[in-house]
């Protein structure tokens, strides 16, 4: 991809540097006044950091209505990602996902999406009142993970729901699995539907070589890209990308409905500098990341009983492509649940992985990794196998349970509800979320029927040490159900 603009510049960072030279006397917010108001905080975070924690002002532009440096930086980002327009997001990728959905859905609009979406997607449906039409993902039963969207199933769902306004694709999944984005996009467009891509785990696709296709290259209308994940910017910073058919001024209005009016320049400058780095060095950086992941994968597979999977899962449809920078490892043959390996790694080996679910762990490999640390991870897994290896009978494998959606999420969330013990909730309609975090994919969402199978799964996951969140009862012993049944 050729860039039209000079990707060497970083307008927001440069504006902050120029401002520093001017030694402007601050009679505006933030009240810490470049850190002078709280020495302990300044000592902890550093003077440089506090010195650029500045509010919007003329030389720095305004995130809600960019006309100068933020506008330039957004144009550079759009150019780098091959998008028609790009928006700097400071409320997390969650806000980018919500803006995508709310810009195309109104109350009562139907949106087609896979059920294994991030909670932010269903949150957006609660806020705007859109109705989800789920395409159940296929499952790889050996690994217990959900796969991508099948093109045939998406086509069927589009035909059955011609009034739907959009299709949302989760691409890649947390585990690195990609759907056939181009075919889904083309068919949705043919039927007059927008295509929204939750590309939270795919920022590097835009810069690495031989990576799976990006949302923008596939012709999707919008994509939410977590720059803070593989892109290396600060936590909570993200990009929303839009294609040529999206009215960017209307999209800005939607973003401004919920976005802070005090966008942090720490986050904005980190987006600016990360975009610059990836545009200039991304190809080499991600070749290195992929090589590190491949190395670790081979070494882990040599240990025995672990299975670190990769492109061999590709099947032409529900695993249309695989992101080889993701190091997912199946652990059940060691006799340990992924969450158990995850906890042992942290408690005994001082290693934090991204997450452990029932059957897998995911070690996130990125531009900040070193060979030395990879050796530690691989050796720890070898040592854990030596110490804990046991028979895996009786271990639950299956992670995805097809939901029975009875009510729209908004209706269920705002309905009259009551709290009951989770064991006694089978057959009722759920009025809230229950999910394991991470990955933050709901087991139950508002408006879905609770079944014995789901209850068994929740209790098994809790017993294995999964962190269950979303419910009003923080320990997830009790659950909110709709009063008076359905």
């Amino acid at each position, binding site marked *: 991809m050729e860039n039209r603009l000079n990707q060497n510049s970083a307008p927001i960072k440069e504006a902050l540097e120029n401002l520093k030279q001017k030694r402007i006397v601050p009679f505006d917010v933030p009240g810490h006044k470049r850190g002078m108001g709280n020495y302990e905080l300044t000592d902890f975070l550093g003077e440089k950091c506090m010195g650029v924690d500045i509010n919007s002002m003329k030389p720095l532009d305004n995130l809600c209505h960019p006309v100068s440096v933020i506008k330039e930086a957004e144009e550079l980002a759009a150019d780098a990602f091959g998008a028609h327009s790009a928006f700097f997001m400071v409320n997390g990728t969650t806000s980018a996902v919500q803006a995508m959905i709310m810009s195309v859905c109104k109350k009562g609009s139907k949106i087609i999406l896979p059920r294994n979406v991030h909670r932010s997607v269903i949150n957006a449906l609660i806020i705007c009142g859109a109705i989800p039409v789920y395409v159940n993902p296929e499952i790889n039963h050996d690994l217990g993970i959900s796969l991508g969207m099948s093109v045939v199933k998406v086509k069927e769902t589009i035909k059955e729901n011609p009034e739907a306004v959009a299709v949302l694709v989760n691409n890649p999944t947390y585990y690195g699995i990609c759907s056939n984005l181009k075919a889904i996009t083309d068919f949705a467009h043919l039927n007059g539907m927008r295509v929204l891509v939750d590309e939270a785990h795919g920022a590097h696709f835009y810069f690495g070589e031989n990576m799976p296709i990006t949302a923008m290259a596939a012709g999707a209308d919008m994509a939410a890209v977590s720059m803070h994940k593989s892109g290396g910017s600060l936590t909570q910073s993200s990009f929303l990308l839009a294609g040529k058919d999206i009215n960017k001024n209307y999209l800005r209005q939607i973003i401004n409905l919920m976005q802070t009016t005090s966008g942090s320049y720490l986050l904005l400058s980190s987006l600016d500098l990360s975009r610059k780095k990836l545009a200039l060095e991304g190809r080499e950086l991600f070749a290195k990341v992929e090589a590190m992941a491949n190395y670790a994968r081979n*070494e882990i597979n*040599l*240990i025995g009983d672990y299975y670190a999977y990769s492109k061999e899962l590709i099947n032409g449809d529900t695993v249309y492509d695989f992101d080889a920078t993701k190091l997912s490892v199946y652990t059940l043959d060691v006799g340990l649940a992924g969450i158990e390996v995850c906890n042992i790694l942290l408690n*005994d*080996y*001082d290693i934090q992985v991204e997450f452990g679910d029932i059957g897998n762990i995911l070690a996130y490999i990125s531009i900040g990794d070193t*060979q*030395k640390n990879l*050796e*530690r991870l*691989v*050796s*720890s897994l*070898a*040592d854990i196998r*030596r*110490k804990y290896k046991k028979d895996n009978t009786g271990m639950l494998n299956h992670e995805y349970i097809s939901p029975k959606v009875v009510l729209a999420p908004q209706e269920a969330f705002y309905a009259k509800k009551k709290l009951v013990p989770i064991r006694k909730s089978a057959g009722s309609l759920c009025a809230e979320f229950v999910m394991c975090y991470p990955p933050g994919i709901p087991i139950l969402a508002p408006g879905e029927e609770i079944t014995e199978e789901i209850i068994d799964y929740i209790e098994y996951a809790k017993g294995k040490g999964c962190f269950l969140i979303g419910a009003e009862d923080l320990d997830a012993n009790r659950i909110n159900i709709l009063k008076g049944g359905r």
Partner: protein
Amino acid sequence: MDLWYSEFHTDNVKFSIKVEKQLYSGQSDFQRIDVFESKEYGRFLTLDGYMMLTEKDEFIYHEMIVHPPMAVHPNVKNVLVIGAGDGGVARELARYKIIENVDIVEIDEEVVNVCKTYLSQTACGFDDDRIHLYFQDGLKFIRSCENKYDLIVVDSTDPFGPGEGLFTKEFYGNCYNALKDDGIMVNQHENPFYGADCVAMQRAHKRIFESFPISRVYQAHIPTYPSGHWLFGFASKKYRPIDDFDEKKWKSFGLKTKYYNTKLHVGAFALPNYVWELLRDVE
């Protein structure tokens, strides 16, 4: 001219040696390597600015990391050494005729090259055909070894650089796995005196204590290391460092040593009270 090498032992304590001249300075893939010449300590090697060895006092360290386990284990044939790119450990091991094979795994080939050029006093240890050098990460090398070695010597740098992986539970666990049923592991165990080093020392002991049924610590006096008071770890599956110490047998080897002797062997395991307490706190 007034040229000095200095190392900060803490933020507030500085150790300096007057330097006659710098013999070598280079950056490898892993670390900065320097060799200096001094009046007081002869030649000395530093890695990333930290003192590794001097010609004057290296005998203490190398004798104390090799002879105590050799005087306990009755029949050492196969030895693995991790680190030790200067050759000092190899030199001491090579003096034992009963040893059949020594595998040395050093991550940085440049260290070996520099020592062969400038520090023949220790690098002469590599000139024995029982010694086999492997240039790779020790943590990686040991992963695939099982029930193979009688003795493992961990001659690491500090836990804050390339040697970090050699102070971890995964490393000690894999060492256990690589040792035979009566194998012994000895390791460089930092000093108990200064804050950050002491914490690293306790962590290492905790990890070893969890990994081996027998885990003891012994000490030596090394003038050029921080605080001068240095610890070594003795971890083993079967033999106890004093109960199974075979004085007669070791004497029969007829080795002439400058620091180690059989009385000192027993004494080295007697630790100051504050060190006992530091160790006990993590057991």
